[in-house]
Structure formats: C-alpha cells, structure tokens
C-alpha cells in the first residue's frame, strides 16, 4: 500500500479525498487534473525598474522586477553579462511565510527560475558585454510572491521572462575604451527563447497540473519541469519529499510539455514578443 509519509491523520483524509476526485477527472476548484489556472500578465507596472511584470495564476500573485547595472564579468565568463535571481516569499502572501532572510524554499525558487532562464540560454548574455573582460551588464531579477495559493514556480518564471522581454535598459557606447551612457536612449534585453516551467503534483499514480495550496498540503510528491522550447527540457526539480515512481515519469514529461506550450502562448500574447535573435 502507498504511504503518506508521516502525515497527520486529517491530511491523510484530504489526500484520499483529492485522489478520489482525480480518479473522476475532477479537482476541488473544478479543474480537470491536467488543467492549469488562468494566467494574467501585466508588464511595466514599476517605472523605477528597468522591467517589471505582475503575474497571477489563480490565487497566486507574483511580481518580478528587473534592474540592470554595470559591473565586472566573472573571471570564467569574461564575455558574458552577469545575471542573478533573488526571490522572497513575502509574509503578505501566506501565514506560513516569515519575514527575514530568504529561507530554503525562497532560495530554491530563485535557483529554479535562474536555471530555467540560464540553461535555456533565454538571454543572449554575450550581447550585453560592453568591454570584454571588464564591463558587462549585471542583470538583477527580483521576484516577490505577493499572494500564495500554491505553485509559485510557474508564475514566477512567467513573470521573470515577461519582465525581461519587456524591459527597456539604458544604452551605453564605448568611446576610446571608456563606457559612456547614451542619454535618453534605451535598448532591449536580447531574448532568444521564452522558457516556462510546469509544476506537477502527484497523488499516488495520478498527476495534476499547477496545484493549489490545499492540494500541495496533501500531495505525495511534486516536480517542476522547465521547458526551453517545445521540444527541449531545460530544468527539472523534484521539490518536495515523497516517492516519484519510475512508472509515472514519462507521463509527467508529456503532460508538462502540453502545459508549457499553453503557458508560452499566453506569454507571447501578453508581451507581443517576436524572435529577434536566432542563436
């Protein structure tokens, strides 16, 4: 028999009830198992940021902001701009989030978003090098979870990518080896691909897409799969305890691919994106 590892009894009851629903292709909020919640994307809401987006996925709200500074490249990548992702689970979002420095969940969120963007080579970091080995763009991606009803991964990736793709950043030119700001002119961050992630929950042998907070409290395990394009996985993270049976992995990949295509379509609509650079 399957085991709900150390879960207290009421959680076991909820787990069994949710599983029962899924067997009938249903969920508490009326969705079918493979259905994600509606996605709303607002970009450029923060004038002080170089790029910004607020994304809601059902009751989960994310705000992402981009700031671009000038800095030195890392010694092992002299011909690449730097990129760092930070995430905070704001205490406004849930009574389970505490104020204070990012905990392991927030750090995991930041690193999963980083991985989706970095591994899919979404940003053409080489184009943001001003003086090789010396002056490059430093891209800060800051993510805040404002309201949490499960699955803060997928809307965070969408918010980060939407903010990046709609950012307007200062323009610089190099004159006699010296970096100069071109006053009043702006440029874009060169985006090559639009990665998205898909958060899957497992109940026994059944998969659900985009779990809510109540589903997350009872599921057996969960998984995030980041898609660089329709056909390429760029990141995976098993992000909760629990057994992930071998038998279910291929189905998980297949389902997440379908959802990723939907997410990306929604993202493209919102940001009116078109491929400017082919890698």
């Amino acid at each position: 028999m399957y085991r709900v590892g150390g879960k207290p009894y009421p959680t076991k009851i909820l787990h069994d009830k949710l599983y029962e629903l899924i067997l009938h292709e249903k969920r508490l909020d009326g969705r079918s198992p493979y259905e994600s919640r509606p996605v709303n994307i607002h970009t450029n809401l923060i004038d002080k940021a170089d790029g910004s987006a607020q994304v809601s996925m059902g009751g989960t709200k994310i705000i992402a902001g981009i700031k671009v500074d000038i800095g030195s490249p890392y010694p092992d990548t002299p011909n690449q701009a730097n990129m760092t992702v930070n995430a905070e689970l704001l205490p406004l979002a849930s009574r389970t989030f505490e104020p204070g420095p990012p905990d392991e969940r927030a750090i995991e969120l930041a690193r999963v978003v980083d991985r989706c963007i970095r591994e899919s080579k979404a940003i053409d970091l080489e184009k943001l090098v001003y003086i090789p080995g010396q002056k490059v763009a430093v891209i800060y991606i800051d993510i805040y979870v404002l309201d949490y009803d499960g699955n803060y991964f997928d809307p965070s990736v969408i918010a980060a990518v939407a903010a990046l793709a709609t950012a307007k950043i200062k323009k610089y030119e190099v004159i006699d080896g010296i970096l100069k700001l071109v006053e009043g002119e702006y440029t874009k961050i060169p985006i090559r691909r639009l990665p998205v992630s898909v958060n899957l929950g497992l109940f026994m042998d059944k998969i659900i897409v985009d779990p809510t907070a109540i589903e997350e409290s009872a599921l057996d395990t969960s998984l995030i799969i980041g898609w660089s394009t329709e056909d390429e996985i760029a990141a995976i993270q098993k992000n909760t305890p629990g057994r992930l049976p071998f038998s279910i992995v291929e189905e998980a990949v297949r389902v997440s691919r379908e959802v990723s295509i939907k997410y990306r379509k929604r993202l493209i609509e919102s940001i009116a994106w078109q491929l400017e650079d082919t890698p």
Partner: protein
Amino acid sequence: MNETVRLFTEDGKRLDGRSFDQMRKVRMEVGVLDKCDGSAYIELGKTKIFAAVYGPKEAHPRHLAQPHRAILNCRYHMATFSVSDRKPAGMTRREIELTKVIKEGLETLIFLEEFPRSAIDVFIEIIQADAGTRTAGITAASLALADAGIPMMDLCAGIAVGKVQGKLVLDPSEEEDKYGEADMPIAIAPRINSIVLLQLNGRLTIDEFKEALSLARRGIESLYELQRKALKNKFAGIEEPEVE
C-alpha cells in the same frame, strides 16, 4: 544647491501642475490579497504599496506573549526594484526606523488589550517608492487592519508636507523632497483629533510648522474620506475610489 533647480513654474504651479495644497492622484483598494486576514493597496502618484494583516493569533514564540495585551508586529519593507538604485535585499536602517514609527502609530489605535497573549502582524510592502511611502504605508495598513476586523479607535491616514524653495507644499514629489528644505510626514486619526505619527527632516520656523500641520490636516481629511469609501466599496463590492 537648490537654487539651480526650479521647482515651480512661472505661474506658481508645481512642476507636475499641482497647486501647493494638492495631493497627487490617490487610489485605494481593500481586500486585494487572499491569504491574509485583511489587506489593502494604495497608489499615491507612482508610489504603490500593499499592506496585509494577520491576527489576532497566538503569539509566537510564546515567551514574547504579553499577559495583558496583544503584541503588534510590523514590517515596512521595500522591494529591491522599488527605487532608482536597486535597494539591497534585507532591512536597511531606514526601513527599521520607519517600521518603528509606523508600528507605534498603529499601536496607538488598536485595542490591543482586548486580545491578551495574542499577536497581530502587519506587513507593508513598497513595490514602487516615489515619495510618501511611510505615510501612504500607514494609510494602507490602517485599511488592512479594518479589513481584518481588528477593533480600532479610529482609522488613520498620513501625508507629508514639504518645504520647497521657501514654500510649503502638500505631498511633495520625489524631486521636491530631494531639492527641498524640509519634509514632514504625519499621520492623523481624524475622529479622535490626534497625531499618531510625526517626523520632521529639515528646517522649519515655528510658524511654518503650524502652517504645515494645518495643511497636512486638510489633506488627511480627504484621505480619510477615501478610506471610508474604500471600506464601503469592499463590502458593497464596488470599484475602488480614486481622486485627483
């Protein structure tokens, strides 16, 4: 330094077209977040703030609990991208000080003694800072407390008064604040006729101070009306109030 920057047009208007006693456009909304017990959103010009409230709930850790009253926890926090130069993550000394004065302002109004051994948490998140964040923050927090059903003597609302090139102005813009001589943030509970938050950075004569107080007071009265409307709208399900 402030001689070279002109902050008034030739007809005495402010650079954004406002008169000296005019606030920026305000928008308030109550109940904007789902998972907390009460919440509010405020826009004051480009300043954008969320506030959320939890409680009354069990004080945690236990040894912080007070036998005769609830404790009030508060955090005023800015998003890294809310300001022109990226703010480092973590609480700056400025944020810690503003947290203190906002918390004390709210503590003045809440009937904490009704909830012994409990805690009430107030979180204020500045997502864009364009002057006036502490006063807009306490205004939003007061709404969020009301939304959470926390019993209070009164709502409070706040606004700053600036002194700019010798003239007092209501609700200074970021530029006016930067090049001005003084900035006086104040929050008032109008029904009980009391100041709950008061700071001054910069120089004022006694007469200017008095004038600044009454200028703030008029502004706060109109904010107070907007707060009451926002609360009514929440419970009536109507759109948020907006004013120019």
